[in-house]
């Protein structure tokens, strides 16, 4: 059963459309919700958390309606975007209060808060007032309140905002660890590589519509109207240095004669991008052509099956 199901759901704010006739089923595991600012990600999150009501259609979480439904809501953990805080509270009080409001007794809430604070690396700062926290700390204490009551589904709206590179890495590890423990996660971001580092299961939104859903690579494979890009990087000693690009040139000339190659781009002295409508044929033929030209190859890889490229194609932006 899908964790979150949207059925012909539309949401508009006056004349502005937030989501437009979206039908979607989000399964368990980690699902990335990606799209540019204003695409409708937070609207979808707000609807999932019962903060917003659909203008048309319906949304079900764990098979049930979510608006004003404490039974369902207590199974969810929500990390909202921005800085919604009671600034005079300490981090620990904040987490304990919200854990109690989720149904834990005072003793359980204290224990759960300690655990969540430790998981998010906030133990050292937990007894300081939130108003003195840095942006990264605020993000972490928000995550701690999200985790404290042991929810089954985490809804994380831009959780990496404000975190430094080390912090981002730690958070990504934490999310993977939670997913391994069986917690489902719906995470949004407008920074594609952040989501890509977590999961390949994505929902792409643009202008209130879902433009693609599923595994990033499969989504790319299914885009038959777009040429595929294959990157060929040569190793040193095959005429591939800043001054000597003869290896790349020789290979380019050879590939230009191949029928299945639709285009070629020499990106640098050691890198060539091959464009083709039939990538399997090119992958099969490349080892032979490389041997014919006597060049050493370091890497042959798809250049455009990453999230950013796929998103660019789907939203008609340059990848």
């Amino acid at each position: 059963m899908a964790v979150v199901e949207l059925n012909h759901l539309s949401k508009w704010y006056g004349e502005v459309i937030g989501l437009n006739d979206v039908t979607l089923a989000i399964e368990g595991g980690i699902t990335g919700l990606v799209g540019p600012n204003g695409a409708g990600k937070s609207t979808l999150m707000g609807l999932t958390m019962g903060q917003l009501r659909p203008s048309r259609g319906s949304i079900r979480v764990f098979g049930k309606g979510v608006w004003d439904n404490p039974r369902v809501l207590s199974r969810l953990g929500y990390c909202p975007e921005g800085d919604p805080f009671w600034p005079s509270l300490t981090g620990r009080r904040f987490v304990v209060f919200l854990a109690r409001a989720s149904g834990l007794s005072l003793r359980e809430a204290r224990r759960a808060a300690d655990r969540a604070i430790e998981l998010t690396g906030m133990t050292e700062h937990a007894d300081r007032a939130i108003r003195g926290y840095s942006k990264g700390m605020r993000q972490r204490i928000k995550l701690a309140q999200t985790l404290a009551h042991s929810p089954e589904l985490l809804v994380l709206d831009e959780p990496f905002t404000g975190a430094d590179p080390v912090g981002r890495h730690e958070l990504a590890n934490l999310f993977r660890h939670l997913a391994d423990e069986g917690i489902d996660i719906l995470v949004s971001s407008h920074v594609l590589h952040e989501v890509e580092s977590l999961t390949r299961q994505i929902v792409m939104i643009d202008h209130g519509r879902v433009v693609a859903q599923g595994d990033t690579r499969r989504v790319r494979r299914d885009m038959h109207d777009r040429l595929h890009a294959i990157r060929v990087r040569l190793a040193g000693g095959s005429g591939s240095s800043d001054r000597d690009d003869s290896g790349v040139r020789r290979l380019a000339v050879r590939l230009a004669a191949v029928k299945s190659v639709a285009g070629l781009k020499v990106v640098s002295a050691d890198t060539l991008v091959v464009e083709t409508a039939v990538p399997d044929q090119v992958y099969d033929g490349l080892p032979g052509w490389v041997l014919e030209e006597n060049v050493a190859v370091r890497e042959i890889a798809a250049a455009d099956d990453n999230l950013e490229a796929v998103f660019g194609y789907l939203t008609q932006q340059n990848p």
Partner: protein
Amino acid sequence: MGPLLALFGFTIRSTLLARKLWAVLIMLAAPSMLLVLIRLVEEDAISKGRELWEAYHVMNQFLILMVAVPLVCMVYGVSLISAEVESRTFVYLVTRRMRRATVFLIKYVATACVLALLCDAGAVSVYFATFSGVDLPVPVAGNPALGQWNPTHELMVYLAVIPAAVCGFLALFAMVGLLARKPLGVSAFYWVMVELILSNMPTGARVYSLLHPLRLMMIREMPGVTALYELPQDLLNRVYRPDQSGLIPLLIVILVSAGITAWAVSVRELLPTKVSQD
């Protein structure tokens, strides 16, 4: 019960730690400070029975019940839910193990408890500011209803009526806070027009103010206070009939206002003014 108690305790703490508490304390201390000032400036100004009686009731009836209590309730009531909505902390409360209407009701009850205690403290301070150094009971000439006047009983009446007033005004202003576009302006307009002007007009229309049921409750226990209203006897008999109870109309106001607010909280999305469509 756990989530409800947690929110109850949290709201009491937030109410007591709010910055506006200073303004509230000053508002509630003003009547007793005024009395102290009068007594310092002119020692005999309110030393005799009738003057004492008038000073005490004017402070309680007009400055506490008509001015301080409504203003305090306005300050807290209009922002009871909207402050959480604007700071976006409301999202934490409505995604917990509580119904949306329950969130409002718990916040309302907790805030009413704190404000009732604070306002009662204001009434107690008026009592001490008026009667410190005065031998009780006080003989009150010219008012046979009072005779040997013991204001302690009247203090008890005020201590009971003030929480009732807090409940009424807070419910009313919380409703305005949620439903009106400019809640503070609407509340202030209502307070001036209805509670300050209409409730003191020498017409039967004064029964439409929230102060009316409160006055009925007080008059039952201390009939002499009608002298303060300076109304013609026939109007007095018509408006403040001794068989009338103020409790029922007050309860109706509280239940209707709180009910409408609870309903609105449970069906409306309640988004901050600056909303993102992302």
